[in-house]
C-alpha cells in the first residue's frame, strides 16, 4: 500500500471501514509527514498535534465498538485559520488576533468534529482572507509545494499547500472572491465553492458577509462531495443558510456527461491569459466534448464589470465587519499599556491605537476603501451603483443557465506566480482574481479541478460553474472530467 498520508479522503475512509488501518496510524503518518515537509512549506499557523492524536485514539475506540460517527471518523483534516475553534488559537493570520483563543466553535468545524474528524491544525491565509497569494499573512509565507519560490495562491493558501503536500487528508477553506478555487488551481488540488448559504458562516471570521462561502479543499472531487454533505445545511445561527434539503452528493455522483450542455463564456478567454493556461483549459473543453457533452459558446456581457462590483461591495462589508476590532472585548489592545504612557489614552485613542497596531496594510486599505464608498456623497455613486450592477451579473448567469447546464472557464489567468511579483501593486493582485470573482456576486457554485501542468511543472486548474444549488450536477461533471484527465496519477509536486 502507498504511504498512508498520500491517501485521499475516500480511500482513507474505505481503509478505516475495512479495519485495514487505524486512525492512530493514519494521524501519526500525517504528523510525521508534517514534521518532514512543513519546514519547507510553512502551511500551518498552529498545529494541534496532541489533541489530534487523542481524537484519533477516541475514533479508533468508536470503530472498535462498531460505532463510527460517520464515514470520515478518524480522518485528519486541516482547517483554515479563519474558523473559530474552541480552545485552539484562531488568528485570521493577523496580529490583531495573535493570541485569540475562541470560546466557541464555528458550525463548520463543529460538524467536522461531530463527524469524528481529527483536526490537524490551523492553516495559514492572507490576513483576514484578504489577498490572492497568502503573502499578507502577518506570520509567515506559505510556499507552493510545486515550486517553493512561488506563492500557493490565496487566501486559503495554507489549506491548499497542506493538501497538495499531503500534510492532511483534506482541508476546508473560505471563498469570498476565489479564495478556495484560485489556491486550489495553483496547488493542483480540488477546491469547491458552494452556493452562497449552502454552508453556515457562523463562527467564521467575516470578511464580506453577502459573498463569503465555506467549502472543501481536497485531493479528489469525490472527497469534496463527501465533505460538502457533512458541512452543508441550515443553521439557525446563520439566517442566510438555505433550508433546502442536502443531497447525498457522493452517492449521486454520475460520471456521465452525455448530452450535457456546457457553455463557454467568451468573456473569460480575453487578453492577459497565459497561452499555456489557455491551452490546458481548451484541452479540458475538448475532453468534455469527447465525453459526449455539447459545447456551446455563450456571452455574459456584464461579467467584465464584476471585479469592479466586487471591489466596492466587498470593502464596504469589510469596513462594517472589522469595526468590531476595537481593543475592548478581545484581540490586540493598547488598554494594558495605559500605565506605561505619560499621557492617558482616551477611549477613542484605544480604538485608534489598537487598530493601527493590529491591522496589516491590506486590511487597512480595504477598511478605508469601504469607508470611502459608503461615505456621504459617494454612497449612491459607488455602493448603490455596484449593488445594481450586481443584479445584472446575477441575472446574466440565470439567463445563461436557461440554455446551458454548466459553464467551464479558466480559474486563474496564470499558474503560480513568484513571491513579491504582485504584492507591491494591489490592483495587479486584485486582477489575478478576474475569473473567480464574478461567481461570488452571483451566488452560484463553482469548482476548480486540476487539468494539467505548464512546461515548468506548475499545475493549472479549470473552473466549472453551475446554477445556484446545483452542486450535484457540478460535482458529477467534475468527477467525469477528473477521470478523463487523470491528473492525480500523472502529476505530483516534487518535494
Amino acid at each position: 500500500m502507498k504511504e498512508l498520508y498520500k491517501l485521499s479522503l475516500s480511500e482513507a475512509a474505505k481503509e478505516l471501514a475495512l479495519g485495514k488501518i487505524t486512525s492512530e496510524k493514519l494521524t501519526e503518518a500525517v504528523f510525521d509527514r508534517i514534521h518532514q515537509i512543513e519546514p519547507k512549506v510553512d502551511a500551518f499557523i498552529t498545529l494541534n498535534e496532541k489533541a489530534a492524536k487523542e481524537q484519533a485514539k477516541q475514533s479508533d475506540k468508536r470503530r472498535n465498538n462498531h460505532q463510527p460517527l460517520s464515514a470520515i471518523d478518524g480522518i485528519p483534516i486541516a482547517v483554515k485559520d479563519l474558523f473559530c475553534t474552541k480552545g485552539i488559537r484562531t488568528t485570521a493570520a493577523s496580529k490583531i488576533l495573535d493570541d485569540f483563543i475562541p470560546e466557541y466553535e464555528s458550525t463548520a468545524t463543529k460538524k467536522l468534529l461531530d463527524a469524528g474528524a481529527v483536526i490537524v491544525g490551523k492553516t495559514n491565509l492572507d490576513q483576514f482572507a484578504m489577498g490572492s497569494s497568502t503573502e499578507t499573512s502577518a506570520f509567515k509565507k506559505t510556499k507552493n509545494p510545486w515550486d517553493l519560490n512561488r506563492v500557493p495562491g490565496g487566501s486559503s493558501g495554507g489549506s491548499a499547500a497542506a493538501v497538495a503536500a499531503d500534510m492532511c487528508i483534506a482541508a476546508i477553506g473560505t471563498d469570498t472572491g476565489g479564495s478556495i478555487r484560485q489556491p486550489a488551481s495553483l496547488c493542483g488540488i480540488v477546491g469547491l465553492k458552494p452556493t452562497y448559504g449552502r454552508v453556515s458562516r457562523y463562527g467564521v471570521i467575516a470578511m464580506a458577509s453577502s459573498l463569503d462561502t465555506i467549502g472543501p479543499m481536497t485531493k479528489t472531487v469525490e472527497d469534496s462531495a463527501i465533505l460538502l454533505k457533512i458541512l452543508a445545511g441550515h443553521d439557525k445561527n446563520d439566517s442566510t443558510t438555505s433550508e433546502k434539503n442536502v443531497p447525498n452528493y457522493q452517492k449521486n455522483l454520475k460520471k456521465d456527461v452525455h448530452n450535457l450542455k456546457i457553455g463557454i463564456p467568451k468573456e473569460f478567454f480575453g487578453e492577459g491569459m497565459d497561452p499555456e493556461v489557455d491551452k490546458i483549459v481548451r484541452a479540458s473543453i475538448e475532453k468534455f466534448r469527447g465525453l459526449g457533452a455539447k459545447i456551446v459558446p455563450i456571452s455574459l456581457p456584464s461579467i467584465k464589470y464584476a471585479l469592479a462590483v466586487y471591489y466596492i461591495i466587498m470593502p464596504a462589508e469589510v469596513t462594517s465587519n472589522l469595526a468590531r476590532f476595537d481593543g475592548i472585548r478581545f484581540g490586540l489592545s493598547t488598554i494594558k499599556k495605559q500605565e506605561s504612557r505619560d499621557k492617558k489614552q482616551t477611549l477613542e485613542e484605544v480604538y485608534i491605537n489598537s487598530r493601527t497596531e493590529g491591522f496589516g496594510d491590506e486590511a487597512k486599505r480595504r477598511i478605508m476603501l469601504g469607508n470611502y464608498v459608503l461615505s456621504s456623497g459617494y454612497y449612491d455613486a459607488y455602493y448603490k451603483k455596484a449593488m445594481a450592477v450586481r443584479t445584472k451579473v446575477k441575472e446574466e448567469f440565470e439567463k445563461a443557465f436557461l440554455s446551458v447546464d454548466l459553464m467551464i472557464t479558466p480559474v486563474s489567468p496564470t499558474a503560480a506566480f513568484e513571491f513579491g511579483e504582485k504584492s507591491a501593486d494591489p490592483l495587479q493582485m486584485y486582477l489575478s482574481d478576474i475569473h473567480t470573482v464574478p461567481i461570488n456576486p452571483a451566488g452560484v457554485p463553482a469548482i476548480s479541478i486540476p487539468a494539467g501542468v505548464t512546461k515548468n511543472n506548475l499545475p493549472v486548474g479549470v473552473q466549472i460553474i453551475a446554477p445556484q444549488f446545483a452542486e450535484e450536477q457540478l460535482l458529477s461533471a467534475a468527477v467525469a472530467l477528473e477521470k478523463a484527465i487523470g491528473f492525480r496519477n500523472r502529476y505530483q509536486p516534487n518535494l
Partner: protein
Amino acid sequence: MAKLTKVDVEHIAKLSKLELTEEEKSKFAGQLSNVLEYVDQLNEVDTIGVEETSQVTGLRNVYQKDQVEENTLTSEELQKNAPDFRNDSFVVPAVFDDERF
C-alpha cells in the same frame, strides 16, 4: 472623481479609526486612487430601473423566536479574551473626564 488627495486619505483614515504616517498617506492615496479609477468603469453600465441585490439567493425576512438563548457565553468565558474585565464588565477609559460631570 477618483483621484484621492492626502486630505481625502486623512478623512477616511479618521472614519476608519486608523492613524497613518505621512509616508503611508501618500502610499495609500496612490493605491486607493488606482482602485477607484478601476471601479469607475461601472459608470458605463445602464442601471436605470435595476433593483439592487443584497441577498443573492432570494431569501426575504428570516425570523427567529423571541426567546433568550441558553447557551450564550458566560462572564468567565468572555473574560478570557478581554484586555481588562472587572465586575462582569469590560473596562474602558472614562469617556467624560470634565470636572463638571
